[in-house]
């Protein structure tokens, strides 16, 4: 994935100052707490009483069999789903009525299960949209193409180019995403999330469709990222999760069945039962593993 600069400690940055993302330590206040979250759709309970804390600078894994509610919890964290009960705090203050467009402003970025790139825009432009929240020219001045907006646009472009370079995808900058291999698209999507220089990164199955060596690179990248932001990771690939996560929460059928360090979770009989008790899922995981082993890619 290319050389990502090692984090160097810097004096506490605040939410408002203009950050140069590559040289800072995680914001000590950047803690996401979800307490007693419940979600029901109609009469169906998708999540009941789930709590987790993503500590600043940590990688927190969220695992569980299919249908366990991982994505639902994720959607709660980014405002797409409103919980029917429970509370979420970010940076120490309660977040209520979160709406998706506010996410970037709060310093939270999310990648999607698919790649979700804008088909009609170049790779560079895609990433520029991710850097959107850093641009400060107002509506009117941008419309009238005033000088401020012009330099603003140039800065946006430079920032996006740097993010692509960080992930070793510079040479695709002028291509359209549709024609690129899936792993490259995923990398671009990640660059688009990282260019906003978030304090919390929500990664939704970043390894799906990646081959073994690409997954390894991804793992190393996530470890590097944790030096400068908190990461909440939903992932099926157990080896990746166990390797990169500091803390893991295990969900099954909308309930939290285990939580702790990778070693603790692996030793927890409830987790083994949840995974082995579900025949269908084991088969699906096995199929996915063998597909990945053959270098096969699947698309979401």
């Amino acid at each position, binding site marked *: 994935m290319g050389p990502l600069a090692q984090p160097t400690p810097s004096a506490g940055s605040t939410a408002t100052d203009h950050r140069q993302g590559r040289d800072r330590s995680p914001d000590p206040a950047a803690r996401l707490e979800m307490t007693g979250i419940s979600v029901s759709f109609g009469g169906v309970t998708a999540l009941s009483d789930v709590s987790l804390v993503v500590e600043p600078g940590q990688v927190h894994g969220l695992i569980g069999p299919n249908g366990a509610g991982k994505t639902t919890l994720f959607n709660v964290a980014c405002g797409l789903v409103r919980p029917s009960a429970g509370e979420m705090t970010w940076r120490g203050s309660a977040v209520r009525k979160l709406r*998706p467009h506010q996410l970037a402003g709060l310093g939270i970025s*999310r990648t999607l299960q698919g790649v*979700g790139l*804008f*088909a009609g825009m170049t790779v560079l432009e895609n990433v520029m*949209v991710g850097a*959107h929240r850093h641009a400060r020219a107002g*509506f009117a001045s941008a419309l009238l193409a005033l000088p401020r907006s012009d330099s603003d646009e140039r800065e946006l472009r430079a920032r996006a180019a740097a993010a692509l370079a960080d992930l070793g995808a510079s040479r695709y900058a002028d291509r359209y995403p549709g024609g690129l291999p899936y792993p490259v698209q995923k990398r671009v999507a990640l660059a688009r999330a990282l260019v906003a220089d978030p304090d919390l990164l929500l990664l939704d199955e970043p390894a799906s469709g990646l081959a073994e060596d690409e997954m390894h690179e991804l793992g190393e990248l996530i470890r590097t990222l944790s030096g400068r932001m908190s990461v909440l990771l939903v992932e099926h690939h157990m080896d990746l999760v166990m390797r990169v996560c500091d803390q893991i929460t295990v969900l099954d059928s909308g309930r939290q069945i285990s939580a702790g360090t990778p070693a603790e979770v692996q030793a927890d009989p409830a987790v083994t039962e949840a995974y082995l008790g579900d025949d269908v899922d084991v088969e699906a995981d096995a199929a996915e593993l063998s597909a990945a082993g053959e270098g096969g890619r699947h698309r979401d």
Partner: protein
Amino acid sequence: MQQFINVTLTGLTEGMVYAAFALALVLIWRSTRIVNFAQGSMAAATAFIALALIQAGWSYWAALVVALVSGFVMGAVIERVVVRRVEGGPELNAVIVTLGLFVAIQAGIAIVFGSSFQSFPTPFGLQGFQVGDNRIAFTPTSLYVIGAVLVTMGLLVALFRFTRVGLAMRASAFGQEVARLLGVRVGRMLTLGWGLAAVVGSLAGLLIAGGEFIYPAYMDSLIVFGFVAAVLGGLDSPIGAVVGGLILGLALSYVSGYVPRGSALVNVSALVILMVVLLVRPGGLFASSTARRA
């Protein structure tokens, strides 16, 4: 030969207006997946506003600016107040709403400004340029029409390519949910998009009105031509809309110039072209690879 040149020049001029109108339809289609049938009435309303100002003694240019601004406001307000409620819902609802707006605005014009024919001025002459011993069917007004459309298109390209707002508007058009997660105010972008489209549409209406008579329904045929041009180019492609407009302008001009009693066949020809395009290349000439539902 002279007739060929005349017919071609006329076709290009009219094609430019169709192109502008098609572009307005495409801008809205791309961002909200709605065909705005009310575009013509909205443009006609702004033309009547301009005419009222000119009759009150304003200069053509001041009236033009006011008309375009009122077009922007009208487009933005209609999106925010009416269309927002049907966006993303069943397609038929949106079609019915824009058709309803089409009728309602046209009736509104008739109520406010009356439904008689009124002549609309043009800032430039209507007499053809002199080339050698002949006068060609290319007037200073034609030049103005082509120039105005080209400048507008240039500005739109600059907006979409080189500004942050343009970037956000394109992102909203290609993926609303994702754009929202990236912090783009998608709703505002859609409102802005409708406003801009209405400006382009009303420019087309004002240009085609120059030196002609206007009445509440004078834009009706332009809706058909603009729609055919947009489908010809592929509803998703702004460049396609422009090329489609030019092709349609030329084709219709040749029909009316060369076919006996051809001027009566112009509307029919437009529909024939529409049918052929839908049968042979339903995605349009410039369609992207993704299939589009007709």
